[in-house]
């Protein structure tokens, strides 16, 4: 079966141990997590997880069903590819010799990034965008020499009024 990358969003109880439950489920069923992001929601009782997974249709269906069985998972949804705002944050430290600084600055401005730290031989850039844009920028930076980088993992929210929020009566 064809493997695709897809984004899962889950509303989970904001407890200790919930991340372990979710990641443990992925590990023991053999599903790969490409990235996972978790943070508290507008209601402090819940956190929201955004998980990028690669898998075929079978895995897609099983993951949603298995996640939904966890008592701490209140809602889970696969985000529709064409109707979702996706953003990822990048911090990247690049080698920056004086000869190449101008070139780096041009790239940073084209990718709408920002220089947030500057040293004699290096600079740190932050950038936000769709994961594919972040990939493209990282690719471009390889030529300068990457000292280190960290990515936040994707955040995803559906366009329009539809939302993943919990009605209290859902959560009897």
């Amino acid at each position, binding site marked *: 079966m064809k493997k695709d990358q897809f984004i899962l969003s889950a509303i989970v109880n904001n407890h200790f141990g919930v991340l372990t439950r979710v990641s443990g489920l992925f590990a023991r069923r053999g599903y790969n997590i490409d990235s996972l992001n978790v943070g508290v929601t507008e209601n402090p009782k819940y956190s929201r997880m955004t998980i990028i997974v690669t898998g075929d249709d079978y895995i897609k*269906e099983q993951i949603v069903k298995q996640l939904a069985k966890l*008592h701490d998972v209140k809602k889970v949804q696969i985000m529709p590819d064409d109707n979702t705002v996706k953003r990822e944050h990048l911090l990247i430290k690049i080698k920056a010799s004086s000869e190449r600084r101008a070139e780096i600055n041009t790239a940073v401005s084209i990718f709408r990034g920002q220089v947030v730290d500057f040293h004699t031989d290096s600079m740190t850039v932050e950038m936000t965008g769709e994961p594919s844009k972040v990939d493209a920028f990282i690719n471009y930076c390889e030529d300068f020499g990457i000292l280190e980088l960290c990515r936040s993992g994707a955040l995803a929210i559906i366009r329009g009024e539809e939302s993943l929020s919990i009605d209290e009566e859902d959560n009897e």
Partner: protein
Amino acid sequence: MKLTGAQIIVETLIEQGCDTVFGYPGGAVLVIYDELYKNSDRIRHIITAHEQGAAHAADGYARVTGKVGVCIATSGPGATNLVTGIANAYLDSTPLVAITGNVPLSLLGRDSFQEVDIAGITMPITKHNYIVKDVRDLADVIREAFKIAKSGRPGPVLIDIPRDVQTSSCEYEKADVVKKFPYPKVNKQSVKEAVELINSSKRPYIYSGGGVVLADAGDTVLELAKKIDAPIGCSMMGLSAISADYKGMLGMTGMHGTYHASKAKQEADLIIAVGVRFSDRATGNISKYSKNAKIIHIDVDSAEIDKNVTSYLGILGNVNDIVKEITAQVEPRQNPEWFAVIEKMKEHAKTFDEYKTRLMPRTIIEKVQEYTTPDTVVATDVGQHQMWTAQHYKFRKPRTFVTSGGLGTMGFGMGAAIGSCIGRGEKKTVLFTGDGSFGMNLNELATATSYNLPLVIVIMNNKVLGMVRQWQSLFYGKRYSNTTLNRKTDFVKLAEAFGATGLRATTVEELDKALEKAFGMDTPVLIDCHIEMDEMVLPMIPPGGSIDDIIIK
């Protein structure tokens, strides 16, 4: 009313309808045991020989009563000793609440004496688990644990309670017995589709599993079978839900199922699968599995639908309600041609039977059956004796077969038989076991004799690990690596040493005498039955094979 955590535990257990708990005391649960002592007229505690026995006993108790089983253990090794029992309950969907003590909150996470992260350890083998850090949460956590354990597809829940949470106090108010979470709403359109599929099928087949036992839906499934004149094959976990007396009852399907149950499933054009999960032991090679049939999969757990086998139609919800609805709408019919085909399969299967004058496993089971009633609970351990029991014992009443299906836990039997016996008001209970399985947890004989339980323990003693030996015979060139035990243990003397009665049977005549004596007593009796080491469980569909690969001799 202001109560301590330990008092709240006992009060909430009683409030939730629990009158029997199985466990073993220790440092981190002393306060709970103090309350159990004071409340021994309201809640009974059964002390086992080992925490694993307590977990299996709670499991067996839950299976025969349909109630939530409860076990208690101390921190550290007490808690880890429960692990196999919890995993067993998880794989067989038994409602269980396991309570463990832990070191005080201030010592948690410091590798303190007898500290173990039991919540972390049991995460993948429980439906949910808790560490209670505030006594004010305790009562509601226990209530929620009961609710989760018995809702939907049942399963085990663990509650870890640090020692100081047991000693601190807060207000407690009695609450009602928790209700199950509502079942998923049944899709009416799917029911209609199922009815049409059944009406237009030529060779319908009902495949009934453990979910039917759990939902107490045996009668409902039987009614459907009678109305559409369909045969029924069971997964091992499904045995007992439907009486072996039904003319269309074909017995167990799968690796060691009857020839006709598996063959008819292969020939069916429609399989109505109720409360099954199509495990590898039940299906064999999935790509060759019932290729001619459309599968209607009815289950309470959405993750089971299309997990192992892709169904033509999946219906999610309470299986009892769904089958009832289908039965109401479906057209009554007769399938004489289909049953004629099945009769031929049955005739063919009879040619595999061979009776010898020696003491054969099948003879032992059939002889025991002469002494039991349809209400007698039969427990097993794991291995050849378990398969022989599943094949040859005629179960007639739901919840009378207690066996470890999913996890296949050798050593399950003694604890499970004890729990079952207590769950059934200490009525005569039978355990079929093997010398290998029995050797794993025979310490529980001490429990059986302490409580003077009317257990009949039938050991099929072949002096080898029979099931592994069978695989070594068939697939490993008869290289009997570490399976020829030939231990010097004298089980008769052993039984006597524990305070039970020990009997031996090496011939059919001796067995007759032993059974007559055993069933005339109401205390634990062990019968050491000597069988040949090369008896095999047949028929057998080899792992990854199909009905075409069946081994008969």
